[in-house]
């Protein structure tokens, strides 16, 4: 090889504590180094030109630059050597700034260390080989998992951008948590008026295919070419015929089905359309409470249905679809507040969650928008709100802030006053977190204009006192204990990862954090990407988020998907694992340890089992290389030989003197 070495001064950043000239001089004696120099700013335009000129003039076939961290300028220099006609992988970097000049002032030691690092880079480079990325076609279709507001936004943006969209929703209707809300902060505008039109757009957009009552069964493939299996649960209603007329729901005699949409604040019929604005507006039978399905008697809905769409024999259906990108928008679920013994563990019917309260406030809710407490249907006068129920509490393993409870509690206090002018709201809070646009002003309005009494402290106990509940807590500002008689207690229940998120994460190879929220690629710079290429996150599945942020993230995820699939072909990073077929004994251990399913078993011409890497799926971690005892599968650019060369450069083996 003919290797060129370029030592960068980085102004005085490196040259201040490293003798760059001597490093360059030492490097000229390293194996296969034919050219060695130092320059002021190697990454600058003249610096890069210097490299290109040297490659041409010295006929270099490999370049080492000793400068800053490769995490900074490796792509820059790779492009430079590529401009000079070299393969970009025939380039190595030695980090003599962050790892040398900036962390010590002893020039002699620094100079030695810099020279060692250059030697390591040279020794590795001697074992590099040109690598060429593979390109492949992409499927111009996006899968959106979850039909809440984040998923809806992502789906509409993708579809408007010209991509086909497949939306999968676990519930019977899209709309998610937002569809259950009465009004939204800080504008107090009607939730369904904002969301409704977008839901209709989903149903009507020609590029969007919607599957509700459906979940992801399996995902295989890789960025640009995922293959997805969707399981659609039996609804016992043929939706191609159902018009959503609702006659069946009026006539169904089994009226004791749990009303999921209304957060169990009442019951509904076994055949049901969850709410008037449901999309799709189709009926579905709850098999657990349908007497026809359970006992074989009834059949009323089939008799009254004008289009004959009832099918008690319907089975689950598996749908296969190929997509190029996936947007995960599975949202959140509420913390199970029954874990707190001090709130009565469910013994008191008038202790409800904030989402249940939304249903009581909603005109389409079980009480028609009149606030009636569950125990006796009376209108409450004193309403106590307790914040941080399952948020910021290590004792229940929920140390994080759920983010939007402060805001919706203020909103609910305001709405309570609107509904019942002679009511009084009390809010037990820890801190008020209102960092959005117009948010703090909003909480102030709740206190100042609507007279909500904010008490800073935790609630220690709720106990019945006559027809009321007594709420005892601390007022930490007054330094005293307070007891507030309440007709209704609303718990600002915290947010936790949606049920099944961890399992879905396994299917998608997206890692959940310890609370089940999906981990983004970078907390600041890649907030909607995941470490699995082609899978993006939107909304609360990544962490608690309010509506504007969820919508923003939905659009961001859509932009990422659109950007990805706007290219005709994608290139894969060639620094992936490669099997030396002659060394592979087909033990398949690598297949088992690969976190990405990027290795498959094949049979060679002699009928022997071998491993094969799917280059576009491999992410280049190298777990397989360590797994393989024969060293038959090697991670390109980080092969055993390359790493061993670095080790041997640092610690030369002591040979038997007589052999030297």
């Amino acid at each position, binding site marked *: 090889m003919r290797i060129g070495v370029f030592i960068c001064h980085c102004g005085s950043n490196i040259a201040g504590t490293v003798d760059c000239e001597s490093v360059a001089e030492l490097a000229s004696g390293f194996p296969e180094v034919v050219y060695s120099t130092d320059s002021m700013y190697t990454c600058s335009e003249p610096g890069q030109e210097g490299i290109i000129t040297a490659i041409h003039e010295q006929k270099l076939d490999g370049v080492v630059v000793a400068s800053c*961290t*490769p*995490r900074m300028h490796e792509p820059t220099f790779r492009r430079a050597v590529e401009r000079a006609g070299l393969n970009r992988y025939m380039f190595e970097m030695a*980090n003599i*700034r*962050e*790892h*040398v000049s*900036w*962390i*010590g*002032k*002893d020039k002699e*030691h*620094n100079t*030695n*260390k810099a020279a*060692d*690092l250059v030697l*390591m880079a040279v020794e590795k480079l001697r074992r590099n080989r040109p690598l060429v990325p593979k390109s492949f076609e992409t499927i111009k279709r996006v899968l959106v998992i979850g039909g809440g507001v984040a998923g809806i936004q992502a789906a509409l943006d993708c579809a408007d951008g010209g991509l086909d969209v497949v939306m999968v929703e676990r519930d019977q209707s899209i709309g998610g948590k937002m569809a259950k809300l009465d009004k939204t902060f800080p504008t107090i505008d009607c939730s369904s008026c904002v969301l409704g039109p977008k839901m209709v757009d989903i149903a009507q957009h020609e590029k969007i295919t919607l599957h509700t009552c459906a979940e992801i069964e399996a995902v295989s493939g890789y960025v640009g070419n995922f293959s997805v299996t969707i399981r659609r649960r039996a609804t016992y209603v043929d939706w191609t015929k159902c018009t959503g007329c609702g006659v069946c729901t009026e006539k169904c005699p089994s009226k004791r089905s749990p009303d999921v949409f209304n957060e169990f604040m009442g019951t509904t019929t076994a055949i049901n359309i969850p709410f008037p604005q449901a999309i799709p507006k189709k009926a579905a039978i709850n098999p657990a409470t349908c007497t026809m399905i359970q006992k074989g008697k009834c059949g009323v809905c089939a008799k009254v249905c004008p289009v004959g769409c009832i099918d008690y024999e319907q089975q689950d259906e598996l749908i296969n679809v190929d997509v190029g990108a996936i947007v995960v928008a599975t949202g959140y679920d509420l913390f199970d507040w029954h874990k707190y013994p001090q709130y009565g563990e469910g013994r008191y019917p008038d202790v409800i969650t904030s989402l249940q309260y939304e249903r009581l406030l909603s005109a389409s809710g079980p009480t028609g928008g009149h606030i009636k407490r569950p125990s006796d249907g009376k209108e409450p006068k004193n309403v106590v709100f307790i914040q941080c129920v399952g948020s910021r509490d290590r004792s229940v393993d929920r140390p994080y802030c759920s983010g939007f409870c402060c805001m919706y509690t203020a909103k609910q206090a305001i709405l309570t006053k609107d509904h019942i002018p002679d009511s009084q709201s009390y809010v037990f809070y820890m801190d008020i977190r209102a960092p959005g646009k117009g948010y703090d002003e909003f909480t102030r309005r709740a206190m100042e204009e609507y007279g909500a009494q904010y008490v800073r402290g935790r609630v220690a106990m709720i106990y019945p006192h006559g027809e009321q509940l007594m709420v005892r807590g601390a007022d930490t500002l007054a330094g005293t204990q307070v007891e507030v008689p309440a007709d209704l207690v609303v718990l600002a229940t915290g947010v936790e990862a949606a049920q099944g998120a961890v399992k879905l994460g396994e299917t998608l*190879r997206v*890692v959940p*954090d*310890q609370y089940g929220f999906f*981990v983004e690629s970078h907390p600041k710079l890649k907030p909607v990407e995941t*470490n699995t290429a082609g899978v993006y996150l939107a909304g609360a599945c990544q962490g608690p988020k309010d509506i504007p942020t969820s919508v923003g993230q939905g659009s961001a995820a859509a932009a990422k998907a659109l950007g990805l699939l706007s290219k005709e072909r994608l290139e894969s990073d060639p*620094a992936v694992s490669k099997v030396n077929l002659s060394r592979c004994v087909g033990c398949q251990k690598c297949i088992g*340890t690969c*976190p*990405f399913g990027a290795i498959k078993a094949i049979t060679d011409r002699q009928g022997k089992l071998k491993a094969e890497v799917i280059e576009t799926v491999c*992410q*280049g*971690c*190298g*777990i397989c*290389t*360590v*797994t393989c005892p024969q060293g038959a599968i090697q*991670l390109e650019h*980080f092969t*055993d030989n390359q*790493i*061993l060369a*670095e*080790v*041997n450069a*640092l*610690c*030369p*083996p*002591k*040979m*038997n*003197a*007589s052999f030297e």
Partner: protein
Amino acid sequence: MPAQDERELRIVGFLCNWCSYGGADTAGVARFTQPTDLRIIRVPCSGRIDPLFVVRALLNGADGVLVSGCHPRDCHYAEGNFYARRRLEMLKRFLPITGIDERRFEYTWVSASEGQRWQHVVTEFTRRIHELGPAQSFNPATQEEWFNLALNEASKGEACACHGS
């Protein structure tokens, strides 16, 4: 600045690209002073680190080997450090039977944001290695020693009590 005395020792570091290498960069950007003995080999993931790399370095005469990866659960590749943790723990536990001081090898987790922690890890590990002093070479250093070794072994009978009885 070497850790304690003027003489540098040979410490090899294997760092994953995503977390610990970034952590070392962060420490550099923040100008956190560190001993100079350590030389870092960048690998994509701690799951790429074959315990045999560590063995190779130690048998080649490294005075210390430090491995650092992403904190468990934070692996860029989801699972690499989980495999690494098992492999490296077994190596560390195995070293005592070889007579190589297991304190010469350490593995830990440093994230890309933990510049200060990286400084602490490097400083402490380097201090430890200096306390242990230069490692004894597995191969004899001089011609004479090679010769003596050959003589020793020729004069020896059974190697272990297991085989005597």
